[in-house]
């Protein structure tokens, strides 16, 4: 079961703390709940309000693609059961940062990561952490809808099956599809291919697939960029509903979208050295109305990027 990506090596272990035993299939309710990491002063120094219940703690994360440094020194805390948006110009490292949260970057040869990320206080990086377990707890929805060339039912059941889910699979599939607001549209065609659905339906199917493994955190990388405005609206509504049960981190290019759906927003920027850094992080309303940093203001007023 050793993950292939170990060959990339070089994952810096900032925190030697042993990962808590985590029950893969169990969701948000279990371990680490009372563990409150202390907030570093630098992490949210530009805002007054603090984060009471940290679900994901990103601590001084940097990443290299081979010899090229893509992001550096990113630290931020993600509030539980909120939607946190990552915005910034193309190439500033939003996707890179997002994919660090479920160790997806390691599938790319030559990637090296420093720093630490914790979910409920449990470190995601370390020699004894299994990325497979990390990805079970931190699900992902991709930019382009990517259902498997399998039936709708099998798409949703996939994660549960490989995780050895013992419960009633029909119920799980129905529940996940209902949560993804797709059930009514597909309940009579569960045996048909997931590829037969429209783009927006495929994306909701991918959301259903992600929540069927009952993750704690769901990462979404521009989940609406391939969709029309009506399908986008549905996904946005869905995200807000899901935020009741899941912690959501979303990358978006669309600032209206970030303003509409997110509770907090992080603005990233890659300046002359092309290394992405976090410029400003705060409550979405505050960041959009009275940003602290002039670069943030330039960006949200469309002066560059």
């Amino acid at each position, binding site marked *: *079961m050793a*993950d*292939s990506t170990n*060959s990339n090596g070089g994952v810096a272990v900032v925190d030697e703390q042993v990962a808590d035993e985590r029950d*893969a299939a169990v969701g948000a309710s279990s371990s680490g709940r009372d563990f409150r990491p202390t907030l570093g002063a630098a992490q949210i120094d530009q805002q007054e309000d603090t984060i009471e219940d940290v679900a994901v703690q990103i601590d001084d994360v940097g990443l290299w693609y081979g010899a090229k440094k893509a992001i550096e020194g990113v630290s931020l805390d993600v509030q539980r059961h909120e939607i946190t948006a990552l915005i910034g110009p193309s190439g500033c490292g939003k996707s890179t940062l997002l994919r660090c949260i*479920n160790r*997806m970057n390691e*599938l790319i*040869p030559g990637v090296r990561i420093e720093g630490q990320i914790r979910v409920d206080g449990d470190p995601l990086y370390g020699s004894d952490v299994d990325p*497979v*377990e990390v*990805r*079970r707890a931190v*699900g*992902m929805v*991709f930019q*382009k809808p*990517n*259902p*498997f*060339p*399998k039936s709708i039912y099998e798409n949703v059941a*996939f*994660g549960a099956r*490989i*995780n050895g889910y013992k419960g009633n699979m029909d119920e799980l599939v129905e529940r996940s599809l209902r949560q993804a607001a797709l059930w009514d549209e597909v309940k009579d065609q569960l045996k048909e291919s997931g*590829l037969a659905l429209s783009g927006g339906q495929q994306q909701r199917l*991918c959301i259903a*697939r*992600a929540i*069927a*493994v009952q993750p704690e955190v769901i990462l979404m990388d521009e989940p609406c960029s391939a969709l029309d405005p009506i399908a986008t609206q549905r996904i946005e509504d869905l995200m807000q509903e899901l935020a009741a049960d899941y912690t959501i981190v979303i990358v978006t290019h669309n600032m209206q979208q970030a303003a509409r759906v997110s509770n907090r927003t992080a603005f990233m920027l890659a300046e002359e050295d092309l290394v992405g850094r976090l410029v400003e992080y705060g409550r979405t309303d505050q960041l959009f109305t009275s940003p602290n940093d002039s670069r943030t203001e330039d960006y949200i007023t469309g002066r560059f990027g």
Partner: protein
Amino acid sequence: MATGTPAIDGSGASARFKRSRSRHLFEQLIGLSLFACAAVTVVTTVGIVAILLAEGLTFFTEISPLEFFTGTRWTPLFQSAGFGVLPLVNGTLIVALGASLVALPVGTLAAIYLSEYASPQIRSIIKPVLEVLAGIPTIVFGYFALTFITPFLKDTIFPEIGVFNALSGMIVVGIMTIPMVSSISDDSMRAVPQELREAAYGVGATKFEVVTRVTFPAALSGIVASYILAISRAIGETMAVTLAVGATPRMGFDILDSFQTMTAYIVNVSLGDTPQGTTEFRTIFAVALTLFAMTLLMNLISARVVQRYRERYE
């Protein structure tokens, strides 16, 4: 080519847009010569099929198709001539089946390794080696079977094995067809979009689960197509089996013994002193026609499968 130009009011073009005669001629010449090259392939194919059909049909006016396709005695050059092709078909199918048992599993696993597990460096070594394997003349494989595999089998596992035997032919034809299976299967697995793998990793799949439940099934039609092409190649394989398997047309399944395949028979008669224009000589066209029908069928099936595979991720 230029005939579809609409004439709006019949007036000629102004100097600015005037068609250049020499350029037009040049374009037509290019088109014609390219067509001629394409035509050569079609004409040869049609010619070969026509000769096969003509000679084969003449043969079937002399020997009944019923005897040919159901008879189990193949002794066309003997006094008591038997014209049942089944012993040759038997030899061909036995070798093809045995070769598949070698090539399909090894080729598939090699493809999985290459596309999913191998690092770029290792891949850049193994791929060319497989291509070299595919480029070795088949007669070399025949000698390899005759002078290495058979003696090796005799010394180790099967002391009773004949000088010519089906087993060494199976092994050597299997080795020959591994590159075909592995390279086409590798291509079709690499054609599976990375997003699908990431989707599987994203719900906590291990590498093995990604390969067995996502990549392999998604590439299955390409993989099956490679199987069919490999079997078809094994059926048509000639020099290696002529050398390794021998020239004894027979029914039965004793792979330690000599058989004769359809291709090996054709070689023997072509090189022998059977006078042209006789029924005995025409047997090779009847056999070739049968062989052609078999491989054509396989290739048609594989074309269908590949077609399906193209539509796969749309």
